[in-house]
């Protein structure tokens, strides 16, 4: 039997606990920026229009590749630190998970970690487009 990594919900809970260690928004933002520094880097060659997320003030790219057991592996990057952090959060929770789970994932944890202002669909941070693109890939792979 293949070893199943922690579920999406378990990883989200882990992030909620991690962000819970900071009581101010600044600490949480600094943590977000730090997480962005550890993002699984998309290769420069893939920083192209095909992987570019539209609807964002900064440039952001996300790439999904099929991995072991049909699970999707994500890489990404952005030229804005906060956007890169948001991409890193999504990847940390959704990477290497069964596509059906990714497609159905509830990302309410973003609100719980104090990033609710980034959840508005009209905010030009690309978060919604990132989620849609990732879920779309997952649905096609499922």
């Amino acid at each position: 039997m293949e070893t199943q990594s922690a579920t999406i919900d378990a990883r989200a809970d882990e992030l909620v606990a991690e962000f819970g260690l900071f009581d101010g928004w600044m600490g949480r933002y600094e943590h977000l920026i730090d997480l962005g520094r550890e993002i699984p880097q998309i290769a420069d060659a893939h920083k192209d229009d095909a992987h570019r997320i539209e609807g964002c003030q900064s440039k952001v790219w996300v790439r999904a590749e099929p991995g072991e057991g049909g699970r999707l592996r994500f890489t990404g990057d952005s030229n804005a630190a906060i956007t890169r952090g948001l991409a890193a959060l999504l990847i940390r929770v959704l990477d290497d998970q069964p596509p059906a789970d990714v497609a159905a994932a509830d990302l309410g944890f973003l609100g719980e970690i104090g990033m609710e202002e980034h959840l508005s669909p009209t905010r030009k941070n690309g978060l919604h487009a990132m989620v849609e693109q990732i879920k779309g890939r997952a649905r096609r792979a499922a």
Partner: protein
Amino acid sequence: MEAARPQREPALDADYDVEAVRAQFPALQQEVYDEQPLVYLDNAATTQKPQAVVDRLERYYTRENANVHRGVHVLSQQASSAYEAVRERVADFIGAPEPDRGPAHAQIVYTRGTTEAINLVAATWGRSELEAGDEVLLSRMEHHSNIVPWQRICEETGAELKVIPVTDRGELDVEALEALLSERTELVAVTHVSNTLGTINPVERITEKAHAAGAKVLVDGAQSVPHMEIDVAELGVDFFCFSGHKMYGPTGIGALYGRRKLLDAMPPYQGGGDMIDEVSFGGTTYAEVPHKFEAGTPSIADVIALGAAAAWLDDMGRERVHEHERALLRYATERAREIDDIRLIGTAREKASVLSFLLGDVHPYDAGTVLDRLGIAVRTGHHCTQPLMERLEIPGTVRASLACYNTREDIDRLAEGLEKVRTMFG
């Protein structure tokens, strides 16, 4: 740090009671996020509204509401008079000259704002006057709303768009403009004040040169009307456009000033009620200017409240407001220069109310997001001036834009916020 700062002069106008001005703006009294008093520095996008304007809207809807121009009843007549009286105030507000025929205010056309005013001129004057071989000159610093309508009408008519270059410090290159002018030039369309850089363009000089070449001049006044006295007669322009919401008035209303002769010769814009003289299936005749350009039920409440905003600004004294904002911009520029790694974008000799900048390698979006959390509202991005960003080889800027109610404390909060941004992303 306080002590190390050089002596500043000149001081803000001591008679200008900015706290009393602020007190008139309900929206400025709020806190955002975790009890951060709001610092509103996104005035070039839209200004907050004084109580007088809010009250005027409320009074209209609670007591005066009626459709204009059609009713025999008392409310309709009162609404019509109030609505038309604002036209006179607006004409006066921007110094519309007396034409040979009719009153000055017949040259004021209500529109939804600057964007619609420019589109109106492009769709009527442009469509009827431009043809293959003609040229339209625009500057590189134009807002998209003074680019796209001209691109579209040029495509349609075969006229050609030419671009007046902008210098490194963000000034319009007047010599290059002169070189571009020829007998083919039909129109020069420029912004009075750049929304991205704050540059004040020398409209009088531009108009003189353009007229000498036989071209008409359209000026986008969206960013000048809120900040300085405007006299379209002195500027000599043929068309002038502005938006109410950037001058303390409501959204959805603005105006076009056009010379009577030009307006008379222009075909109507949209078709419908109010713009006609007589309608029959044999043929329709149109109303006189300005109604020929105002089809359908207009934004009556917003027109009336625009009048209130103009009255309010006149009571404030636009020259005083301008002085206050100038001193504040100087202060903001000095404070900004003390910040390490800051790069001011737009250092024209004549500037109004805009401080655009980049902070080291920090993406404007990151800076704007952190400032927002600190309760400081700025705008980030290309500010609808992508050709200008391309010229300056930057992806965008952080823009702080000032209004009559901004204070030194607002600027200090911005400067402190930028120090925080630097430590977070440095």
